[in-house]
């Protein structure tokens, strides 16, 4: 699956997207964030305050408890500041 990063999360990770293949026990957004943090210290540091990380699955805004099973694109990003 593809992961997209935006704003300061993209800057801290120094990448806007990546392809990952999490194992089958990674079933939710929260699981995915934990799994990515375990692989990558920079990522772990950037998402230390989990409450600051928002997520979308296939271009739908979701809570961290949402399923990622079958998802093609997951986006992770800080609180939005539009308008």
């Amino acid at each position, binding site marked *: 699956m593809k992961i*997209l990063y*935006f*704003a*300061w999360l*993209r800057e801290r990770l120094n990448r806007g997207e990546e392809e990952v293949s999490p194992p089958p026990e990674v079933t939710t957004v929260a699981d995915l964030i934990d799994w990515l943090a375990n692989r990558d210290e920079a990522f772990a540091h950037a998402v230390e305050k989990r409450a600051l990380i928002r997520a*979308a699955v296939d*271009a*739908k*805004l979701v809570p961290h408890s949402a399923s990622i099973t079958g998802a093609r694109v997951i*986006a992770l*990003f*800080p*609180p*939005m*500041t*539009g*308008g």
Partner: protein
Amino acid sequence: MTVRVQTASFDPGAELNAFLAAGAGAGAAATFTGVVRSRPDDPITTLTLECYPELAINQLTSIVGQATARFGLLAATVIHRYGTLVPGEPIVQVMTLSSHREAAFQGAEFLMDYLKTDAPFWKQETGPNGTRWVEAKAGDDHAKARWE
């Protein structure tokens, strides 16, 4: 019901006139125009908006649908720019049409309150002291919460 997310600039007055022409005779139109600001005590040279367009379209379409149903709007339009803008340029415009002024105003305020916290745009300001990401404001969450 129109949602546009674009890098191109837009003309606030021309958008208002087109919106009014499409809803001839409806009675009440409320418009909010957000402009890049620069204060003497906190000058900026550019404002860059990052965007996730697919999610922005989905979120704005959902918010406009909610506002339309809740306030009985006859029409609603949201235009939101992204990319790099300079002070004075319009960033966002929302327009609502109703037969009653209260509904038009409330619809426009609802759209702005939701858009601030629920549409995937991220502002980055560049000024004499460098570049910084604008932080989300607690006040924006409170403004949204009053509709719940």
